[in-house]
């Protein structure tokens, strides 16, 4: 019996321009595993991720219906403390966006906003985040340099480390390796394999190959609908739906 960190029930979402980007999605996200959401562009994967930490509050959303239970509590409830939620559910974006601060400043940003002032705690968190994101050895000597000086791959791992420094419970990653070289990509993927022991991970991969490599659970999205859901690699080896098979085998993109 797997334990579900997040339970999504009949989630529908439409933007103010009228596009319905998610249509009655029901999906479980198990704890301590990598759940992969994949499918062609425009399928609603990013929209779903942004629902999980209420980042969609910033977008032009017209209606959201359904429930998203995080540890049994509905986070779509208007009374939700979204600030606390976003600390529990961290997010890494496709393009690495380092804040215009030092490396250390990026890492401690979230904690400082939360009111943490103790230097030792901040340093501790920064180090932990960097180590988990496999970046510590590369930057430990120059934590006070501007973060922008890092390479693209390092920046993306810094973004991951920045989320990890907050000790979230869930990590959302939206095509985190889409702009990275193969070496950086495998570093990130390796880090994720380590991380899933402690965290719940939701990953939107940038390719079917990456989906197949990383998935403990996989969900195939097409035009706002959840087409098929499967455990382990079964979606990639024995898809049940024709459209899943067509996509996995590269017959459409």
């Amino acid at each position, binding site marked *: 019996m797997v334990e579900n960190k997040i339970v999504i029930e009949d989630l529908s979402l439409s933007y103010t321009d009228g596009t319905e980007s998610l249509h009655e999605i029901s999906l479980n996200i198990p704890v301590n595993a990598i759940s992969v959401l994949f499918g062609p562009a425009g399928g609603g994967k990013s929209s779903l991720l942004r629902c999980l930490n209420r980042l969609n509050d910033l977008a032009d959303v017209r209606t959201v219906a359904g429930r998203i239970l995080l540890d049994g509590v509905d986070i779509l409830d208007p009374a939700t403390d979204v600030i606390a939620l*976003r*600390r529990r559910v*961290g997010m890494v974006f496709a393009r690495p*966006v380092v*804040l*215009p601060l030092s490396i250390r400043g990026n890492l401690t*940003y979230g904690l400082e*906003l*939360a009111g943490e002032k103790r230097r030792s705690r901040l340093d501790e968190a920064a180090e932990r985040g960097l180590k988990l994101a496999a970046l510590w050895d590369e930057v430990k000597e120059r934590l006070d340099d501007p973060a922008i000086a890092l390479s693209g791959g390092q920046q993306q791992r810094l973004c991951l480390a920045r989320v990890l420094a*907050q000790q979230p419970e869930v990590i959302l990653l939206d095509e985190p390796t889409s702009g990275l070289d193969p070496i950086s990509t495998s570093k990130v993927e390796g880090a994720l394999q380590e991380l899933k022991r402690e965290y719940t991970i939701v990953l939107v991969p940038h390719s079917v190959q990456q989906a197949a490599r990383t998935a403990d659970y996989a969900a195939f999205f097409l035009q706002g609908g959840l087409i098929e859901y499967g455990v382990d690699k079964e979606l990639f080896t024995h898809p049940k739906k024709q459209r899943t098979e067509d996509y996995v085998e590269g017959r459409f993109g």
Partner: protein
Amino acid sequence: MKKTFLNRDLIQRLGFSMISLVALFTVVPIVGVMIYIILQGAPAISWEFLTAMPRDGMRAGGIWPAIVGTFYLTVGTAVFSVPLGIAAAIYLSEYASENWLTRTIRIAIISLAGIPSVVYGLFGLGLFVLFLQFGTSILAASLTLSIMTLPVIISASEEALRSVPQAFRTVSISLGGTRWQTIRRIVLPQALPGIITGVILGLERAAGETAPILFTGAAFFLPRLPGSPLDATMALPYHLFVISTQVPEMPFQIQYGTALVLIIFVLGMNLVATVIRSRARAKRQW
């Protein structure tokens, strides 16, 4: 066929020369006048001229009280208009959504920017000097100038804020930042050089204006420096007006000297703004 080509070529040459001449006629007087003022004014400028009180009905001595007065007025204007203008810009760039209220605000800003300076003077007289009974004072003049400066500061600051990449805001919010924390820690620091540039350009205008302070705070002549914000003050632009129209037998040199000091004051601010802008552009991380 050949002839028309020749014609076309000739017309183009004539046209280009004409336009170039027009541009030349625009720019040459500017340069000429600047050089002329510098040549005429420079001999007047001395330590005494800058730091002494005027004597002999302002026909001798220095312009110290006018310099100090313009400084006070500029600082006074900044005190009111900078916080208000930046806050208004933050509202427009970070909080306002596109609705009728926001459009009304924008129309109001455009309107403020176009109101003649002498009308600001009337308004300051009506509201600050008479109604609120601040009298003809630095306070009343500064408040009047601040409202005049406000649209410049708001527009420039809003532009600076909007040029900060949206992604920074998204990331900060996703890390658990509130809207204000995001503004305070990321957006404002990044927009700061642009904001400072806008502020200086606004204050530069205020420093050079005469009409708004004519009936709100400017004094023809004061034997001593103003002692409080409720005192009237001399000011460089008004002083130049006075000595070039109201005082008979005024030595040219003092007039040109005063004009030169005023220009240096105003254009110096402009130069600072330009330097800040280009420095910040060079250093920018995005």
